[in-house]
């Protein structure tokens, strides 16, 4: 049973009530009818794809967006029941759905829980209503509290809360308040994702910043917030297991770790990306084409060369605090990691950005694990870029 091939499932819901000012993901507001038609198409793609993966078991499902909670709960129920029927879903599969405060009711949450969703990811971003408004979020802290309470009452025992630092107008004290408010929730979230705001080209915030009409905390303030996150969350028993993700023991997001470990995953829905057995492919981003033919939107496949596989293995794996296994590298690529990356590894160890750990449960030959140090986590792009061959 366990040696069966694994396939994670990702569902993309490209709709939201209103686009946030920093968002450059594939998402846009849409009317109820379009969302309904989209959910039909997504169901068709899900059902039509099942046969190709009949021999894979599914350990995790992630429904992301956009704001998946804008879809009708009946449609979500049908989708999940179809996954349960047509895919070999593990009994203990992690099934996550993203929700946005202000778009979910207690009734909706109870039905989703019954339909199998067992992990919720709630986009809070900030506990300060002023900061929320400044980045174009549609909800308030009060609304978040409602949603969080309803989620707990509905039975969710594994909840993530997203927060953001370096927001326009945010002070260190303000950010500390957000952290503390989140940690004083009853019960506190099992998982916290803490990102700093990145101004992506083409977003309204980016344009305002370019015009000079947007004040954002400078790099030093940003760093202080970042360090504060680490410090406070560590005190409260959260382990930083990935660059931006913190969790109580045993509550790491299995789905996302699959991405970093390069497990196979199938992305369903508009623009969704997939990796199956070292082939990357994705659906196109044209909504009309997707609605017309949800199974016919796949764009050209990219078969990863050995070199690309090595690069990905490194720069994805290093996102995790536990890093990569040198033994696994050898096993996958038939060559020692030091042969390919010896110089880069030595240099970054000297610079204090990488460290070698002994393998935890060294079955057979133990080559150790290679991981970013705390400092290396902060400079991860700088380190990872060196692993491109």
């Amino acid at each position, binding site marked *: 049973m366990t040696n069966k091939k694994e396939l994670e499932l990702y569902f*993309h819901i490209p709709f939201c009530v209103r686009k946030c000012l920093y968002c450059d993901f594939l998402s846009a507001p849409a009317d109820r009818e379009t969302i309904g038609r989209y959910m039909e198409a997504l169901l068709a793609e899900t059902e039509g794809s099942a046969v190709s993966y009949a021999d894979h078991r599914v350990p995790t499902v992630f429904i992301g967006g956009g704001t998946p909670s804008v879809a009708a709960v009946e449609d979500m129920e049908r989708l999940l029941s179809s996954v349960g029927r047509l895919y070999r879903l593990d009994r203990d599969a992690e099934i996550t759905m993203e929700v946005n405060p202000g778009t979910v009711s207690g009734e909706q949450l109870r039905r989703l829980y019954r339909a199998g969703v067992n992990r919720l990811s709630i986009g809070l971003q900030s506990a300060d209503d002023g900061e929320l408004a400044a980045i174009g979020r549609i909800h308030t802290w009060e609304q978040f509290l409602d949603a969080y309470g309803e989620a707990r009452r509905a039975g969710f025992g594994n909840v993530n809360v997203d927060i953001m630092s370096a927001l326009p107008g945010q002070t260190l004290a303000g950010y500390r308040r957000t952290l503390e408010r989140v940690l004083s929730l009853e019960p506190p979230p099992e998982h916290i994702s803490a990102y700093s705001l990145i101004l992506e080209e083409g977003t309204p915030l980016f344009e305002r910043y370019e015009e000079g009409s947007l004040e954002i905390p400078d790099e030093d303030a940003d760093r202080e917030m970042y360090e504060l996150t680490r410090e406070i969350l560590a005190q409260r028993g959260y382990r930083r297991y990935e660059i931006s993700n913190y969790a109580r023991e045993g509550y790491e997001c299995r789905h996302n770790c699959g991405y970093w470990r390069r497990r196979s995953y199938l992305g369903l829905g508009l623009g969704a*990306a997939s990796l199956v057995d070292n082939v*990357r492919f994705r659906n196109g981003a044209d909504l009309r084409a997707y609605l017309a033919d949800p199974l016919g939107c796949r764009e050209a496949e990219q078969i990863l060369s050995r070199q690309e596989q090595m690069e990905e293995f490194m720069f*994805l794996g290093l*996102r995790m605090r536990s890093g990569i296994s040198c033994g696994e590298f050898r096993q996958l690529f038939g060559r020692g990691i030091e042969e390919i990356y010896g110089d880069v590894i030595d240099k970054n160890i000297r610079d204090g950005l990488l460290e070698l750990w002994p393998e935890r449960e060294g079955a057979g030959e133990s080559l150790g694990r290679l991981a970013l140090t705390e400092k290396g986590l902060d*400079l991860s*792009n700088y380190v*990872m*870029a060196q692993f*491109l061959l």
Partner: protein
Amino acid sequence: MESMDRKQEQGRIRNFCIVAHIDHGKSTLADRIIEHTGLLTSREMQAQVLDNMDLERERGITIKAQAVRTVYKARDGQEYILNLIDTPGHVDFNYEVSRSLAACDGAILVVDAAQGIEAQTLANVYLALDHDLDVIPVINKIDLPSAEPQRVIDEIEDVIGLEAQDAPLISAKNGIGIEDVLEQIVKKIPAPKGNPDSPLQALIFDSLYDSYKGVIIFCRIMEGTVKKGTAIRMMATGAKEEVVEVGVFGAGQFIPCEELSAGMVGYITASIKNVKDTAVGDTVTDDANPCEAPLPGYKKVQSMVYCGFYPADGAKYPDLRDALEKLQLNDAALQYEPETSVALGFGFRCGFLGLLHLEVIQERLEREYNLDLVATAPGVVYKVFKTNGEMIELTNPSNLPDPSVIEHMEEPVVSAEIMVTSEFIGSIMELCQERRGRYLGMEYIEASRAVLRYELPLNEIIYDFFDALKSRSKGYASFDYDIKGYEESKLVKLDILINKEEVDALSFIVHADSAYERGRRMCEKLKEEIPRHLFEIPIQAAIGGKVIARETVKAMRKDVLAKCYGGDITRKKKLLEKQKEGKKRMRQIGNVEIPQKAFLSVLKLDDD
């Protein structure tokens, strides 16, 4: 051909050029003339037949002089041969312009009906008059709403003193009035003189290297006749060869003919390997029956501006050498010699006529030869007089001798004419003062426009003077200059230290009075350009070991991309690739990586 026929043919030749300020419509008029004389069908017409290098078209500037021969059937029923000789339109190429003019008997002066006379109009027209050319004024762009032809006609008469009342009013763009221009060429420009039976005397006004034919000499036959088999000699360079082919210029192609005789414009090939042997301005004669004296006006080309070119990838050094060699085949004004820099490795110190010439060569190296270059700050040639009486011509700041053995230094100075509308006189004078200009005088050419005369050090105008001029006059000022000579000046070498190491490629010579300001701005600029490293990096400017300015690049604290969404790693990978790509374009100095564009930052100090 018999003498009589040659003489008769000579009477129907018109050799002329078109002179104009940039953008007044020279190339367009040339196109129309070619079109109108019917040698080409419209289908064959490229947008601009004379400018056949891509680069020139994009810049709107004609770089290499070329010629075209067309046949025009005039209203008098006769067919005339019109040789249109194109002239480069930039002050860098003044000498080449003067040789092209010397090959002509007349010139068409194109003036924009809206803008009127500009600095280059004046400079070019005086140059044409100096060569005793008959100048026919033509008013172009009369279809513009802002056109004021009568005002411009009066201006031409008042300022230049040319009769202009019957100047053709044309729109080259829309083909209006072209026939009038052609008729005036036939009527007002004299036929060439010269005796076909005299010893050969031909003026080289351009030459071109062709891999099949060798050097193709573009010339105007002043006296005598040349044909296949004639043993020719270049009187200044001494090169000798037997003529393989002579011919005339079609539009963009070479048309072989029997012979070229006095008055004709055409080409000669003689299996010559290098354009250095066929210098512009040199005289071609018959080695067996030479003319008494060469034509006047020949000058050896001299590089005025120097800079170092280094391949971004050190392994491409041989490719750069080959490319320079090939370019030089066609460009006798390009000089280069190998040099080494601690910071940049192996490269070449290259000499140019001016900054435009430098930019053109750099672009051609990058575009046609696919080379990624690092160029050091352009500098002029300084004369360094040492205490032991020796004089050296300094082209690379790194070679400046120790100050203790320098008696004094001299720098090249130009006399400049700047034409500007009166509202901007103040700001232009201010600019000239900042650039160490010496005010010579000012003349109003009409109520609202004046010519300012200044002497300026060449090194103050080579980088960005033209841009500064344009921006401070909202584009209205125009500018022309001549090299005047060398003058003593208080010059120092400014060195840049990055993380305590001197970066030779960033050193430059500057006047002592502006050294502090330049050093300070340079440090500021480099601080922006040098990315944060894992450690703190001091950037210092120093004169003779004494630090005069300092900035610091703080250590890097954060470089993460947090979000990586829904398994879509393409963006993440692109970002990392970009980062890696950026690293490739870095130069390692000690343990600091400096982006290549930082080396250009010295040029752009006046941006802000």
